[in-house]
């Protein structure tokens, strides 16, 4: 853009601006502006026409006044007049005024559009550029309506100048972003893609922004850009630093273009064409190689440009997640950055490594940097970097290094910033639980956690530790001993008191043998904390006391004394008062037997997803990247054959008339899975969900394909299904058990199905075929809604179709060695789902085998060193991807318990499989 030269400078404007700057006060400034406005008004009003120069000058002044924050309500017409001038500077000022000041509903918009149209069709490239810039700057819907058709033509026309092409591409991008519905690429698509081959680097850089934006919306249409982008990238990467002349920035060839190309490639999966892929891999390798070369310049711009490309390349590698070699190299490169002087680089390295850690290929490589990361956590001065280091530690943790990492995180917690403490606490709690090898370590860790950062330990964390202690016999004694010791500290956190109260109340007897922790000592210790606690904790302690009465009759009188005291029995808090009164009565009236029954040890909690994990997921922090992804994956699930809604609302409205007649056999169908929210009250809520008949009906079909899905006195629904890869076909047989015909028989499925005969004769059977295609993994079964008239009464049924993710398994045979290698690769915390549950049926090896085979996976013999255990392998075929899954079932005949572990490359799949299977055995 030609700068306004001295001779062309507007002296009046300069004087005015310097006057304004010299004003001492706001009032003086307003006075000066009023004076100038009056002057301009009189000039515009004047009879003799103004020449272009003065018009430009006054419009400039108005613009300046407007930008100072004053209202301008005239001069628009003069600005529009300037557009038709032939002088660059006058036109420029006109456009400037319009893009700043004219709002879209102005009457002048027609005139302006006309002027822009004229400029666009002129042959003068600078005028065309000015017009395009104005369109982009205003970027309103009206502008898009007027010019969306014109600009693509300019963009791809053969005779357009390069600079105009650049502007046109960016202008189109802007219009596309404001009103995507108006910018229709249609026939221009391929020509726009071919701009990537343009001679002029500037055009390519501008076009690639446009293409990236467009291909994010409709990737299929722009698929061809991948190979072009790769070849372009390889040409840039392999060029010598001097080849590109203007586009070499501090010895780095075209860094912006390279970054944009790499980002474009991240919109697509790895190229299928071998040659293209090879070339791309070569490029990426070259980029990684270049990072190793000594810098050509000491300037910070040089290293910035180089690193920008490198990081973009690494995110592409992570995006592809298919080249182990590159992933490991990227990881090593990042490892170097971890110790770089530059804080920003360290931050970026930690952040990228977090994503690398979740890739199966590079997980091991990431783990080698553990010392550095721990060091970063301790010594880094910037809190955001420390946060990233903590995230990375969490991501790289697995069974092998869990103890070390948890210990480090715990020790860091003492000095951690307040902003990240709660998240750290959750992470430590999760890691400790997930990778607990022996539970005494787990208990130690959590108690330590409460001791160090009690304020940040949420309810869920201590609920969880109690759940685990209750469910594991072997750890109870140890836990009681540890909490007893922890409570002896002069000041301990209220959460510690809660855990202590609960555990001693349940298992205090296990340590009562030791005179140092005799019942009375235990009680006194707990009661010494009583007065420092809040009401809920006091309530919990009262419950612990009554449990003490049951466990240790010798403490009865002491405790009754306490309960009887005015501070309890007349407490102003209703809850405390009620507990005190009731417990006192209970202890004095009930016999020992009754007491023992009432105050029995808590039954084990049903195994569920850790409530802490749910809590961490809820926290939307910048740090919780991996967890967010996990949630997104879940949201995407549940798409079956283009199915619309998720089957969240699965409870049917039971038909009252049918119930009156007593015809309906099954209870109303409530198959709502336990929601995450209800987990939080686990400890105090009644154990067990009401498990109605239908749920088990549904779960029966997890391992078999044919059978009766539903039966009552009117209707029987049989099912027969077959699955191949990601496709399936299901036959539904509706049998009328009565002698009367059903009329207006309709079934609606939240996925598409062939219509069924509207009439079923008495005693007859009709058949319905459903074709199923699995697009991606899902967790909710499709719902089938059946309506018909029997006699006069309308019957309504809602059933879950037994279509589960395991139906799409392809069995995979593999040797023991392979199995364990795969098993190890899938060691990310979210890839694994584990459940420990009590056997519902007899533990018969043959039955188990049959069930596992029915599941669809291959049952692998002689793989697990323990012959009691079962291992299976299979691949779930969905249209979008294939999910490899491994399963391990460890029966414990003595305890009548199973431990089921599922690992698969997609977290939602492991979880769903685990849920499904847990109901089977």
């Amino acid at each position, binding site marked *: 853009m030609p700068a306004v030269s001295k001779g062309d400078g507007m002296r009046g404007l300069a004087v005015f601006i310097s006057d304004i700057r010299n004003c001492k006060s706001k009032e003086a400034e307003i006075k000066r502006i*009023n004076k100038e406005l009056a002057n301009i*008004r*009189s000039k515009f*009003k004047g009879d003799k026409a103004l020449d272009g120069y003065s018009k430009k000058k006054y419009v400039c002044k108005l613009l300046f006044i407007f930008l100072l924050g004053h209202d301008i309500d*005239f001069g628009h017409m003069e600005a529009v007049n300037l557009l038709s001038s032939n002088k660059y500077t006058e036109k420029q000022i006109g456009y400037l005024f319009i893009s700043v000041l004219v709002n879209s509903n102005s009457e002048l918009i027609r005139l302006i559009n006309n002027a822009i149209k004229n400029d666009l069709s002129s042959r003068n490239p600078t005028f065309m550029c000015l017009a395009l810039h104005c369109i982009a700057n205003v970027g309103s819907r009206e502008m898009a309506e007027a010019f969306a058709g014109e600009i693509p033509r300019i963009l791809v026309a053969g005779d357009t100048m390069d600079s105009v092409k650049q502007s046109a591409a960016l202008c189109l991008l802007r219009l596309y972003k404001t009103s995507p519905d108006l910018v229709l690429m249609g026939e221009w698509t391929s020509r726009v893609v071919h701009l990537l081959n343009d001679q002029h680097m500037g055009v390519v850089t501008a076009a690639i922004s446009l293409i990236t934006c467009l291909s994010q919306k409709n990737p299929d249409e722009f698929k061809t850009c991948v190979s072009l982008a790769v070849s372009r990238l390889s040409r840039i990467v392999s060029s010598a630093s001097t080849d590109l002349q203007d586009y070499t920035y501090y010895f780095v060839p075209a860094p912006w273009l390279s970054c944009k190309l790499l980002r474009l490639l991240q919109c697509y999966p790895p190229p299928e064409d071998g040659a293209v892929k090879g070339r791309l891999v070569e490029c990426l390798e070259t980029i990684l190689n270049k990072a190793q070369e000594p810098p050509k310049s000491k300037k910070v711009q040089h290293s910035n440009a180089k690193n920008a490309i490198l990081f973009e390349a690494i995110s592409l590698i992570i995006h592809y997640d298919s080249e182990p070699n590159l992933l490991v190299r990227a990881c090593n490169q990042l490892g170097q950055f971890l110790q770089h002087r530059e804080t920003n680089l360290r931050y970026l390295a930690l952040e990228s490594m977090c994503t690398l850690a979740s890739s199966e290929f590079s997980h091991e490589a990431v783990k080698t940097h553990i010392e550095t990361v721990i060091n970063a956590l301790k010594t880094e001065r910037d809190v955001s970097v420390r946060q990233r280091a903590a995230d990375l530690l969490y991501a790289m943790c697995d069974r092998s290094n869990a103890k070390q990492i948890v210990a480090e995180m715990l020790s860091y917690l003492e000095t951690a910033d307040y902003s990240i403490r709660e998240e750290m606490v959750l992470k430590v709690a999760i890691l400790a639980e997930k990778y607990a090898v022996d539970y005494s370590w787990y208990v130690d860790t959590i108690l330590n956690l409460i001791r160090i950062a009690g304020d940040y330990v949420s309810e869920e964390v201590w609920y969880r530790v109690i759940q685990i202690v209750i469910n594991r016999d072997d750890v109870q004694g140890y836990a009681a001993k540890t909490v007893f010791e922890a409570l002896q500290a002069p000041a301990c956190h209220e959460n510690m008191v809660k855990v202590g109260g609960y555990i001693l109340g349940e298992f205090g007897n296990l340590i009562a043998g030791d005179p140092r922790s005799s019942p009375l000592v235990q009680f006194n210790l707990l009661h010494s904390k009583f007065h420092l606690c809040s009401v809920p904790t006091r309530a919990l302690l009262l419950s612990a006391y009554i449990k003490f009465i049951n466990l240790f009759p010798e403490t009865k009188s002491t405790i009754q004394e306490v309960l009887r005291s005015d501070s309890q029995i007349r407490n102003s808090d209703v809850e405390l008062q009620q507990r005190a009164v009731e417990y006192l009565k209970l202890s004095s009236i009930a016999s020992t037997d009754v007491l023992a029954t009432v105050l029995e040890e808590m039954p084990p909690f049903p195994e569920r997803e850790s409530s802490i994990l749910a809590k961490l997921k809820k926290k939307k922090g910048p740090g919780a990247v991996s967890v967010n992804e996990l949630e997104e994956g879940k949201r995407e699930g549940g798409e079956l054959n283009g199915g619309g809604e998720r089957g969240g609302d699965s409870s049917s409205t039971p038909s009252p008339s049918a119930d009156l007649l007593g015809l309906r056999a099954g209870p109303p169908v409530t198959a709502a899975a336990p929601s995450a929210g209800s987990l939080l009250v686990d400890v105090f809520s009644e154990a067990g969900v009401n498990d109605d008949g239908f749920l088990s009906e549904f779960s029966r079909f997890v391992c078999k394909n044919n059978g009766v899905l539903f039966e009552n006195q009117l209707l029987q629904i049989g099912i027969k299904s077959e699955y191949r890869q990601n496709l399936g076909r299901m036959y539904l047989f509706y049998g009328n058990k009565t002698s009367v015909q059903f009329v207006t028989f309709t079934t609606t499925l939240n996925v598409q199905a062939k219509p069924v005969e509207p009439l079923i004769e008495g005693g007859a059977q009709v058949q319905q075929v459903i074709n199923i295609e699995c697009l991606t993994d899902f967790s909710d079964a499709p719902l089938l809604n059946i309506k018909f008239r029997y006699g006069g009464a309308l019957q309504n049924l809602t059933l879950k179709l037994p279509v589960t993710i395991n139906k799409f398994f392809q069995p995979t045979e593999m040797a023991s060695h392979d199995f364990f290698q795969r098993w190890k690769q899938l060691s990310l915390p979210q890839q694994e789902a584990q459940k420990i549950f009590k056997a519902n049926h007899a533990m018969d090896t043959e039955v188990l085998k049959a069930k596992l085979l029915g599941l669809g996976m291959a049952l692998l013999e002689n793989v697990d060193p323990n012959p009691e255990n079962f291992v299976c392998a299979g691949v779930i075929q969905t249209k979008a991807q294939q999910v490899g899954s491994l399963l391990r079932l460890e029966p414990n005949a003595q305890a009548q318990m199973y431990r089921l572990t599922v690992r698969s490359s997609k977290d939602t799949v492991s979880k769903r499989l685990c849920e499904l299977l847990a109901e089977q055995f």
Partner: protein
Amino acid sequence: MIGGLFIYNHKGEVLISRVYRDDIGRNAVDAFRVNVIHARQQVRSPVTNIARTSFFHVKRSNIWLAAVTKQNVNAAMVFEFLYKMCDVMTAYFGKISEENIKNNFVLIYELLDEILDFGYPQNSETGALKTFITQQGIKGQHQTKEEQSQITSQVTGQIGWRREGIKYRRNELFLDVLESVNLLMSPQGQVLSAHVSGRVVMKSYLSGMPECKFGMNDKIVIDKQGKGGTTDEPGKSELGGSGKQSIAIDDCTFHQCVRLSKFDSERSISFIPPDGEYELMRYRTTKDIILPFRVIPLVREVGRTKLEVKVVIKSNFKPSLLAQKIEVRIPTPLNTSGVQVICMKGKAKYKASENAIVWKIKRMAGMKESQISAEIELLPTNDKKKWARPPISMNFEVPFAPSGLKVRYLKVFESKLNYSDHDVIKWVRYIGRSGIYETRC
């Protein structure tokens, strides 16, 4: 009570900062700057509450005075103190400006130490202050012990505003009645609101400890005397057009030297005056105000691009009196592009920077009229907003009191010294100024 007092310049830089209580920290200084001074006139209220801290400010030209407190103080007291503070500073070094404040900062701190103690206002009488806070530097050290003890007894004594042993060769006193008249009038000439706020300022050069008695034509007093049958002043209207004898005072405040108990019981104003200049009383009246000028506007819009304005002013007082410094300000629309003015008397000019036509007349006698007519050309604009037609305002100065207040007597008694009421030379002057004197058009 006041926790601290800050003085800022127009940029918000702190010139004076005096903190009296611990609950006010340095951050309070910044809070006021950021929230009030830098808010660019967004804050109109003189009291601002920021983070449980109250800021009371007054502005003198470019200088901001802010009193800060965290307690629930009497806001009127704080403002009275701030105004008093301004008066004191003016008495010491003239106009309150950044320059003057910087030059006298030691003095200001000394004053602040004296007139505020732990946030409680103390004696802020200029006369008294000047006896012990002097600007003559070293001279203070030459004061004899006797003089010093005298200062102490005076400042702490019953009559803190006057020291004993003052002697003048000529006993003289000057009395100024200063009034400002405020008016809002409809285009048809109907008075929408009018009031006068006035001050009686006295300059006394009297020897000894004289006892003074001040009398004016207060309606209550006159009526009382009228009942008694002693209407000793038949001379009726010296001023103005109305021949009324007495005025109704809505409210008044007095200098601390006036004995309020006597005023309450007898409605008589008696006092021992301070030496030098001081304000004896302030008052306000709303009834029977003599409006010195009448403005008759005529505005006609000729099409969208032209406006014709004609304004007539009439003076409404005795022809022998002369009004001075007359200025009529006629606002013009924001899209004015040109103005032609014709006036019979004085000078008129279109001031673009103020968006107004300013018409100035140096002198004008009573019962006269004058007129101005202007043609305003307008530029068509984009927005359809109509011009709001702000009122025409006026400034003037007249040599009488528009409220009708008259000084009936001021008697001086000094029993110990040998001069009587007749020996005192007394001067009385009336000045009526315009406050906000507006007529809608």
